[in-house]
């Protein structure tokens, strides 16, 4: 990819900046060839990757190098886009929001600094991937389980900072963060929580501080670069039971949610319960053309045929219980009693005990895998996906309302419907997977129109996304419109106070520093 300079920076000045960065990290870790710029672009871009081009990437090895780079970036006015491992596929991967931004790749900062098996936490640098942490836990024979997202190729800390979710009792990843260290936009270094006191051993166990706790300020934000973080881990259970139901009809999601939610809130169910629609199973069985060979959405009659052929329900509910066998049995009995009035078929039960093998696709047992990315093969070619992900209260009225709304809009755009609801407690995360072949202009343009419509119509009904792709950060931020975008104004005030040069991640989540505010879409 040809060089796109950062705004307001000349080529000569940019080259001086790169030289200065080389002085910090060494020549080998300033990556500025056309090939490097290709590698630091959105591999799932809905359209041309050149829409969100980076100018270069820098890969520091430690916090001191991060601080030095930030100070130089202020001097040369070169904005930085920090990525932990850059695998945020579907949301922009490792590409920056503002064209010409330099990617700060923290992938070399990949030390596991601490693993406390008694209190169940670890301290990680941002370059530690889910696979790295999992293997470390196995090698240490530590009695701890992780919570992993669908695509576990990325960074543990990066995923938590971007509000990623998993499917265990520790599935709300940003809430597992406890005490972080961050480099501020002026190069200063802070530690949040009890870590604000030198040598305090409670840093990663007490989730608050004396005075305001700033930990969550650094999630989905452009106010600092997180260089290490404490993360709570689940104690490995002695046993686990999985109850699986195939739920036959689309409308059944209403009673399913109303049944699960109170059990989740009361603690009978501990995990985040993932409820995917039927296509979630089919995408891993082959390509779309194997099931429906016409370009438009798979018609309902064919959907019903496929459900019969593959013995699937419209939804699949899998609830995993964790703990001692007697406890799991008691909980399973409660669940079966709760489901019985709605569905005659008993659940398929699978039992596991400590010491028995766990297969590599057991996401609900904290095993990392990238196999979910196989869904890219569904459409063929250079398949990719984006997720439209509104949050709704976990009640049938809200869930069915959003289901009908998004279902109608997706059908109007002649796209296959593939959704999931993940019940996290009082809310459900509704992820609608939108898949496309990157080289098919019709598909890409259609998906973009569809995405715009989903955001607009859901916002009209009062619902907002929890996370989105680079290209839609501004429109989604606009939907948070209480008191004429009061949240945006607050974000901008804080941003300008901490980052007057607009160095860190301009435009992240629709928050623009004053120097680049005209760049907002």
């Amino acid at each position: 990819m040809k060089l796109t300079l950062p705004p307001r920076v000349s080529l000569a000045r940019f080259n001086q900046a790169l030289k200065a960065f080389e002085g910090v990290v060494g020549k080998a870790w300033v990556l500025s060839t056309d090939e490097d710029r290709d590698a630091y672009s959105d591999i799932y871009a809905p359209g041309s990757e050149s829409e969100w081009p980076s100018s270069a990437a820098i890969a520091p090895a430690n916090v001191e190098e991060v601080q030095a780079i930030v100070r130089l970036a202020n001097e040369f006015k070169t904005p930085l886009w920090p990525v932990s491992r850059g695998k945020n596929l579907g949301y922009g991967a490792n590409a920056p929001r503002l064209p010409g931004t330099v990617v700060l790749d923290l992938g070399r900062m990949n030390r596991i600094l601490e693993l406390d098996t008694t209190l169940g936490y670890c301290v990680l640098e941002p370059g530690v991937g889910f696979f790295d942490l999992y293997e470390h836990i196995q090698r240490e024979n530590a009695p701890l389980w992780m919570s992993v997202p669908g695509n576990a190729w990325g960074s543990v800390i990066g995923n938590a900072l971007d509000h990623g979710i998993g499917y265990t009792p520790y599935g709300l990843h940003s809430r597992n963060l406890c005490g972080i260290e961050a480099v501020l936009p002026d190069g200063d270094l802070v530690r949040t929580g009890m870590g604000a006191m030198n040598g305090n051993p409670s840093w990663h166990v007490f989730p608050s501080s004396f005075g305001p706790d700033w930990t969550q300020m650094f999630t989905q934000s452009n106010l600092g670069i997180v260089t290490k973080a404490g993360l709570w881990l689940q104690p490995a259970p002695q046993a686990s039971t999985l109850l699986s139901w195939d739920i036959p009809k689309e409308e059944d999601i209403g009673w399913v949610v109303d049944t699960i939610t109170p059990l989740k809130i009361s603690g009978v169910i501990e995990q985040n319960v993932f409820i995917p629609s039927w296509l979630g199973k089919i995408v891993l069985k082959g390509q779309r053309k194997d099931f429906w060979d016409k370009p438009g959405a798979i018609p309902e009659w064919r959907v019903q045929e496929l459900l019969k052929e593959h013995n699937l329900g419209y939804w699949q509910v899998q609830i995993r219980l964790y703990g001692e066998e007697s406890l799991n049995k008691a909980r399973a009995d409660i669940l079966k009693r709760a489901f019985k009035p709605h569905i005659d078929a008993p659940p398929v039960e699978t039992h596991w005990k400590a010491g028995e093998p766990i297969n590599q696709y057991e996401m609900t047992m904290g095993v990392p895998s990238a196999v979910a990315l196989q869904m890219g093969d569904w459409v063929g070619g250079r398949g990719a996906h984006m997720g439209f992900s509104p949050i709704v209260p976990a009640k049938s009225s809200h869930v069915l309302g959003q289901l009908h709304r998004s279902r109608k809009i997706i059908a109007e755009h002649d796209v296959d419907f593939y959704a999931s609801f993940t019940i996290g407690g009082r809310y459900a995360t509704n992820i609608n997977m939108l898949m496309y072949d990157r080289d098919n202009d019709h598909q890409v343009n259609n998906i973009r129109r569809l995405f715009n419509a989903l955001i607009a119509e859901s916002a009209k009904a009062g619902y907002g996304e929890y996370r989105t792709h680079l290209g839609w950060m501004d429109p989604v931020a606009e939907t948070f419109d209480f008191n004429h975008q009061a949240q945006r104004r607050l974000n901008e005030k804080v941003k300008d106070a901490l980052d007057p040069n607009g160095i860190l991640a301009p435009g992240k989540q629709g928050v623009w520093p004053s120097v680049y505010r005209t760049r907002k879409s």
Partner: protein
Amino acid sequence: MRRLTYLLSVLSLTGPMLAATADPPPGPPGPPLYQMRERLPAGDRTATTANGQTLFSNRCGACHLLGGMGTNLLTKERMQLGESPAMGMLTNRQDLTELYVKTVVRYGKLAMPRQTRVDVTDSELDAIAKFLGKAGQ
């Protein structure tokens, strides 16, 4: 039917590993167990002295060990070409050249994303390409 054959073939790749467990359950073998990658040796990654097999395992293993996303998709692709499912494992391929491996890693191919030089340094890629690129050696 072809899909069923493919799925059974992917599952059949898991046979040797499951055989290591005491009592394999009846019926078709389940998905493979987690495949531990080799550790990345300490040292300067821009002038690595690690061998290609270790580097392949550590740098590419998230997708290209048994049961990984890349292995699964390649298994399907190779079977459609009439080859054995074992050819889904890159380490079994005899037709890869060093140049081809480097090109796919740096430029990507279908579901295979481009890898940055932080993901895999040039020095590491040299060793990995030499390890995988058995054709023409």
